[in-house]
């Protein structure tokens, strides 16, 4: 857990402190809180990448600051009828948005398992969340590479 950015580490602690049924309630709160896409993405869905590992349609995009600690900004789009997927996306948004690129890259790929939902949520869905994280990290690497080329 040492490698998690502070905001994400705080979320993991919040989940860990709860009973399983309350964890699902918390995931629902995250799902409700997922921000809308800003117009520059909402009007240009082609800029978003689909997370194929997820059972429900979810799209993501990110921007990396050109200088400084190269903070990462995340954008997600998922329909309300897919609350579990939205909830996972929202956890990653709140936990990683604004974090330095290197801190995002240092998040362990199995981070979703730290939320304590592996009994309630099928392995298929857990893989979907890991898929989101892996794609975020790949896009960050690509953005960094493009910036230094």
């Amino acid at each position, binding site marked *: 857990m040492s490698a998690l950015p502070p905001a994400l580490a705080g979320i993991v602690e919040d989940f860990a402190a709860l009973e399983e049924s309350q964890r699902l309630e918390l995931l629902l709160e995250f799902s409700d809180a997922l921000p809308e896409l800003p117009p520059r993405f909402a009007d240009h869905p082609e800029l978003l990448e689909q997370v194929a590992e997820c059972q429900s349609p979810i799209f993501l995009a990110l921007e990396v600051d050109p200088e400084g600690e190269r903070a990462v900004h995340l954008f997600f789009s998922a329909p309300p009828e897919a609350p*579990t997927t939205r909830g996972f996306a929202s956890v990653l948004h709140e936990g990683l948005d604004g974090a330095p690129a290197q801190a995002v890259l240092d998040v362990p790929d199995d981070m979703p398992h730290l939320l304590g939902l592996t*009994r309630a949520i099928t392995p298929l869905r857990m893989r979907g969340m890991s898929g989101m994280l892996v794609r975020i990290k790949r896009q960050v690497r690509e953005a960094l590479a493009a910036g230094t080329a």
Partner: protein
Amino acid sequence: MSIATDPHPKFAAYAHPERLVSTGWLAAHLGEPGLVVVESDEDILLYETGHIPGAVKIDWHTDLNDEVTRDYVDGAGFARLMSAKGITRDSTVVIYGDKSNWWAAYALWVFTLFGHRDVRLLDGGRDKWVAEGRELTRAKPAPAATDYPVVERDDASIRAFLPDVLKHLGKPLIDVRSPEEYTGERTHMPAYPEEGALRGGHIPTAASVPWARAAAEDGTFRERAELEAIYRDGAGLAEGDDVIAYCRIGERSSHTWFVLTHLLGFGNVRNYDGSWTEWGNAVRVPIAKGAERGEAPAVPAR
């Protein structure tokens, strides 16, 4: 004492019209004593985002499956679940859910394993209720515990295991997965991630009838005549046939099991819940690849 059935004219043509209710019927009967509404979805949080007022949630994964063995809960477990949800042995249970009632049909099939008598589906499921702008709430009911009897699960009548399927080869089998899964091009649903089958293809002789063909655009079941055309004319099923349906883990084939049993009136239909995640991993069972049904082996493989 059961609640009156829905006299909707579309249902009257089905073999067992009492197994379906319309959204209008349900809206009019909400709160009636003896009626319990159950939501069963693929997405474990969907119920929490808003459900039909008074509905309780039953989750296929955490409530109906045994936590350790790949099996369903036993009679004691089912009785505990029913008690917690305020369901008595005499309750009229109406189940609805997402994805054209996949998981709702799966839950109904599990209720049937325990012989719960009056269990119905909401035609069109959750999506239709929502599309019609009907009331949803986040308020969770707190039903009083009931005294539901411990009933032994009957795995013989409507459930098939792998050895049953091997013995069945030569009799009608319906593969309800997507065409790509049937041919062996892939081992999971389109847009779903790879989910653990070592071999692709289908059980030899199985007819391919993707489950969704039984559903109309709005998620309701197709009318009787359309269903007859799909399953009798198309797949070649005939009166009196002994049929086994399967998919990947048994959820989509529950939907087809419901159609064949309750809408078309086939009296001997079993759901092979092991389905492709068992068959596609089993050693030395026959598999056919491609669009052709394939031949039943002359001698069973084991």
